[in-house]
């Protein structure tokens, strides 16, 4: 059996990376730096998935988010004039609403944390070793088939819509 990778050290390291990356995303003025921070956060997140013995999800996270979506993000960001975004103000005047929302979220977290012990009685989740990918596949194509197909149909509509909108300009 694999040696445990779910040690607290790794957990705190990865969590700290995610949090620092997240903070950098909203504080940096340069959009490309934001994107880089976001990528770091996403990679650390996939590390967290690995710790949950969900390697498939981790791999998909890397391929889709870090390798796919973020490349397209950067693609768009690079074409935006950086000079103009640098002059823009980072935070707007909605800070009161923001604080209220953050406070509400914090209360929710604390609530879950205090009451949460009842929600997960075993303290840790069961994981299906090695069969993980197969399990995901069977769930997606078995139990959640309908939802899966609906989601893919939605994406198809989005793609066609994007093409139509892009084509209009030519």
């Amino acid at each position, binding site marked *: 059996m694999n040696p445990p990778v779910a040690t607290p050290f790794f957990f705190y390291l990865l969590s700290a990376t995610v949090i620092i990356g997240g903070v950098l995303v909203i504080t940096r003025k*340069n959009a490309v730096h934001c994107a880089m921070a976001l990528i770091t956060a996403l990679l650390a997140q996939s590390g967290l998935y690995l710790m949950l013995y969900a*390697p498939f999800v981790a791999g998909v996270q890397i391929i889709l988010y*870090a390798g796919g979506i973020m490349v*397209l993000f950067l693609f768009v960001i*690079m074409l935006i004039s950086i000079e103009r975004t640098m002059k823009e103000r980072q935070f707007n005047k909605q800070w009161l609403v923001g604080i209220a929302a953050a406070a509400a979220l914090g209360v929710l977290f604390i609530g879950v944390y205090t009451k949460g012990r009842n929600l997960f009685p075993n303290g840790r989740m069961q994981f299906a070793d090695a069969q993980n990918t197969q399990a995901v596949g069977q769930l997606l194509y078995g139990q959640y088939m309908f939802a899966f197909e609906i989601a893919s149909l939605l994406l198809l509509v989005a793609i066609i819509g994007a093409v139509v909108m892009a084509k209009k300009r030519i």
Partner: protein
Amino acid sequence: MHDLIEYIQSYLSSNLTPGGAGNWFWATVYVLAVFVGLSVAVIAMNWLERKILAHMQVRLGPMRVGPHGLLQPIADALKLLLKEDIIPEGADKVVFWIAPFIVVLAAFTVFVVVPFGPTHAITDMNIGILFMLGVSSLSVLGIVTAGWASNSHYPLIGALRSSAQMVSYEVAMGLAVVSAILMTSLHGIGFYGAGDAAAGASGTLSMIGIVQAQQEQQMWFIFKFFPLGLVAFFIFAVAMVAETNRAPFDLPEAESELTAGFHTEYSGFRWSLFFLAEYSAMIAVSSIAVTLWLGGWLRPFPNALQGPTWDLVFSLFPGATFVFLGLMTFYNVARMPKHPLFKIQTIGLAGFGALLGAIGLVLLIPQVRVRVNDIFWFSAKVAGFMYLYIWYRGTFPRYRFDQLMKVGWKVLLPVGLGLLILTAGLGMRTEIWEAVVRR
């Protein structure tokens, strides 16, 4: 000392990868070995590419530094390391600094799961192939940021092309890979009649598992469901050239259009990192192709030529190859000009030949022979791909960007999709048949 030998022997007799065994020491040794081996391979590739390309183009290639230019890559590396590291004034310094490291990290991390043999891999992940595709897709990030950070038009266009190219060819590549993964769990219709040994085997994403599936089914996947495996391999072979930005898909660095594409502004050490990354990425994707379709570390004709005699013959190959290379070198030593000025060169070449011969002799020792056989076959197959890369470069003109996209989206993608459906259908033919009959 004795303990050490025993320890090594106990390891050698185990059938686990160091990662799988959780053995930190061996894992470190393997990481170092892969890293060093990869660097040497890139250096050798550099020399070989220049030589082979030169001979394709009726010229000699490097001849001055060392006998037959053997030391040329070392001289180049020294030059690159000593060169001034120029950062353009308008560049985004941090990103400019980080970008080459992203590319190199992505290119090297991939090798964690590459199986050079049943136990010769740093580790075996059950999402091995997914990991390889994922991590290698990260190198796009480095290219894109490098192009952007240079703050110059040509790198930017190069980066845009590169990212668009890599993202779109990843799709076709993924489809081809999926069809190979499907084959791991499906009954086979053999190209040459054999196969079907692995009925009921379950599919796997593990790199080692994929090769083992080929071993159990007694068939390389390139021949499985003939011609489906071949077509899938072909799609992958095209996509992997595009993925590594090599000719004829080398648009991101098309020198006649964009000077050097995304790394136009890079120089010295940082440029050499891109170079290193490009070549190790080539080796990495070739490894995927070899693992998925060409039977990984398995020797040729696993089903036709069986038995201890054939095993012995094939296990002699690695040593024989090196001895042959050594003899070739000695032949060239004999052909060196008999001039006092060439003395050092001649001695150097003879020394190189002796080194090759010695390696060959070591590889002929029975104990060594058995352990390195699989590494040899894997490397030989990868080397074949490397030769193909050079060959393409010497032969093909460059695609234009829209044509490249057309090939990717309008040819490879539909073919890959159809292939996937056909493979699945053919693999499940008994189930489908039963379902139809039961109706």
